[in-house]
């Protein structure tokens, strides 16, 4: 053989083993760091061989040998290690494993279900982790296509473990040490009840929500409460606190009503933040159970630190509100334009937005022109509202979210409906919680 034929090749298996082992060493270090996080949360852990699922019998509670070293020992033996948490009563956590692009269609029908603690896979699988309520007994099951409930005794892979079926690594969208698992939301409860998936061993309050169309008639006569709902919030904490305060003052102290108010609050973030919603539910539950004013502490970010009685503050704010109202009326008198001058010669402000509000099937040009005329008339009669873009936004908001859906206004002329929206907006503007910029107090 000639020299040129003495070629030594490194085969793909050799290379693969080198790179895989090296990569796994890095992964084990990361795994050990994550394991430490889970350990601090009190989650019972198991180390599983990635392909076979065999338990590697690593004791995470033992400190005889550093965890990194133990995990690296396993991986250098050729084993790929995954981390799993044993769900159920020991962890006080259960999980919902779903196909993220298909399962929500089924779950959304039942109401809010998303968790504050979510892990995801690249192929759009998600695991939602929830706090297991004390009274619940929840076995593992697969109640519907693309949905798996991981309950008592089930093992859920946690990041950065590899999902054996797909070869992808789990990663946290919302990690439990930053966003703890919330109690099961109302929609998830309904879903689980619908499939007879859990039993409750003791009575607990039922957190169902009322639809807004059912809730509004019950609160419509409470002007202060409405004002509070409509007022742009200074802060989320204050907003929710004042809603609850006004609701209690109005005699609304039933859990379902209070929760429904908080859910539907127009300026609230609860619908977009399961973590916040979970906290509000806990607040209301405690409030209705103990009868004491709610404490608004929420983990590291409190909803509010103030614990003073609202009564003196309310009196002070009412005095300010009265003064504000007087100033607003004076301003309106000054701003009122003489007859014949005014907006008739100019385009109606935000006409396109108004037009979008009144769009419906069967609406013709005559209807549009009639509405436009009524709107122009309304603006002429209410120069205090017409002269401020923000106030007009509020009028439009009241029209869209209250007047339009209120059965009491069905069939009434647009003149009356617009007047109702204006009155509602003015009520809100005169609310003691609102600080609107005025000529004398620009902001």
């Amino acid at each position: 053989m000639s020299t040129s034929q003495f070629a030594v090749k490194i085969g793909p298996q050799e290379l693969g083993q080198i790179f895989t082992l090296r990569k796994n060493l890095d992964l084990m270090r990361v795994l050990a760091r994550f394991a430490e996080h889970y350990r601090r949360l009190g989650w019972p852990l198991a180390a599983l061989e990635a392909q076979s699922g065999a338990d590697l019998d690593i004791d995470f509670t033992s400190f005889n040998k550093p965890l990194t070293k133990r995990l690296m020992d396993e991986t250098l033996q050729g084993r790929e290690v995954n981390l799993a948490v044993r769900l159920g009563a020991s962890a006080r956590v259960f999980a919902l494993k779903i196909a993220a692009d298909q399962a929500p269609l089924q779950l959304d029908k039942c109401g809010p279900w998303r968790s504050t603690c979510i892990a995801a896979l690249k192929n759009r699988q998600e695991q939602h982790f929830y706090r297991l309520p004390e009274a619940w007994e929840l076995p593992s099951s697969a109640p519907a296509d693309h949905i798996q409930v991981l309950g008592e005794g089930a093992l859920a892979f946690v990041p950065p473990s590899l999902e054996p079926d797909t070869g992808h690594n789990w990663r946290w969208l919302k990690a439990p040490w930053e966003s703890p698992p919330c109690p099961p939301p109302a929609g998830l409860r309904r879903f689980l009840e619908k499939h007879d998936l859990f039993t409750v061993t003791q009575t607990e309050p039922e957190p169902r929500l009322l639809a807004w169309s059912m809730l509004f008639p019950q609160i419509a006569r409470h002007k202060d409460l409405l004002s509070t709902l409509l007022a742009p919030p200074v802060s989320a904490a204050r907003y929710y606190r004042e809603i609850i305060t006004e609701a209690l003052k109005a005699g609304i102290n039933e859990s379902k009503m209070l929760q429904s108010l908080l859910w539907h609050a127009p300026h609230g973030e609860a619908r977009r933040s399961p973590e916040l919603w979970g906290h509000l539910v806990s607040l209301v539950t405690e409030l209705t159970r103990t009868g004491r004013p709610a404490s608004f502490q929420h983990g590291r970010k409190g909803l509010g630190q103030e614990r003073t009685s609202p009564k003196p503050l309310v009196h002070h704010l009412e005095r300010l509100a009265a003064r504000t109202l007087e100033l607003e009326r004076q301003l309106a008198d000054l701003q009122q334009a003489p007859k014949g001058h005014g907006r008739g010669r100019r385009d109606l402000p935000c006409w396109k937005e108004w037009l979008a509000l009144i769009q419906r099937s069967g609406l013709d040009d005559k209807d549009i022109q009639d509405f436009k005329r009524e709107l122009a008339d309304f603006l002429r009669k209410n120069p205090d509202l017409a002269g401020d873009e923000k106030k007009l936004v509020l009028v439009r908001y009241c029209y869209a979210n209250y007047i339009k859906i209120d059965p009491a206004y069905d069939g009434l002329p647009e003149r009356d409906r617009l007047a109702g929206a204006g009155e509602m907006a003015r009520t809100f503007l005169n609310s003691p919680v609102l600080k609107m910029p005025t000529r004398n107090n620009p902001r």
Partner: protein
Amino acid sequence: MANHSNIKLWSIGGGKGGVGKSVVTIGLGISLARLGNRVILLDGDLGGANLHTMMGLRFPSVTLEDFLLKKVPRLEDVVLETPIEGISIICGADDILGAANPTFHQKIRLLRELEELPADFVLIDLGAGTSFNILDLFNHSPGKIAVFSGVSTSLQNVYGFIKCALFRKISREFAKDGEILALLYEEDPAGEDISCMDDLVAQVKRVAPEKCFRLLKALRDFEVFLVTNMVKNDQDFRAAEIVQSVCADFLNIKPQILGHLLADPLVEVAINQMVPSLLHQRDNKIVRGLEQIAKRMVRLGRHSFPAWSPEEPKSAKSSPLNIFKEAFESSS
């Protein structure tokens, strides 16, 4: 089985440039010297010698070139003292055409005289790559050190280097045996891939069982020591076990871990300043690693270390130098 009570000749290789072979060579030399040994460093990077630069010798008066070109009669005549007590150096030849490819006779002369040098330890700093010169120097040394870092590519390179060295050794063992060489470098004529050494042993057992013993002996006698350099974390520290694992699975050999050296920015300063004495500092973490390795090398030197079987006839044909001679005759 012949015993060598002292392993005098150590080669430091690894395949890839920049993993720290020269630094490790110098560092080990200093540590061995501080243990009371006489040490000679030899720059075996025949085409790119720079060991003397790192030792602070900018313009050596004599180099290996002088020996290869027979300007001096003995290899000992090109040994130079260094500023560091107990350490001498044979500077490489980096300024002559063809020095990277010495002739067969030059290499034979070199290898013979290496064993005669007046030192307790001779450390050969091999160049990068896997040329026959490098592999032959590596295989000729009873002490074989492969240096690498913890990154994947370095692991790949050091494994490739070890595999090349092993195959070179086996090919020299069966230099005139076309049948075995064909199995080693080509596919099995029966059409089966030989993906690991176990497969090769099985095939040799099948086609020429009388030669299997020689093959297994060659594998057993091939002892490599691993040194992980520039260790920055736990993963780097454990990287040598990856090399052990792959060598065991595919080459049927088990390299031993000699030690590891922590990453230290002081090394770069020492190289740039051409002041290896910076490595002398006792509170330096890299020196602690070098000392540990040096002590292990001394301990290894006191135990038996098989180079070849005493049962084989000690004919001219079986001595290392003549095996080398045959190798070059067959490859030229």
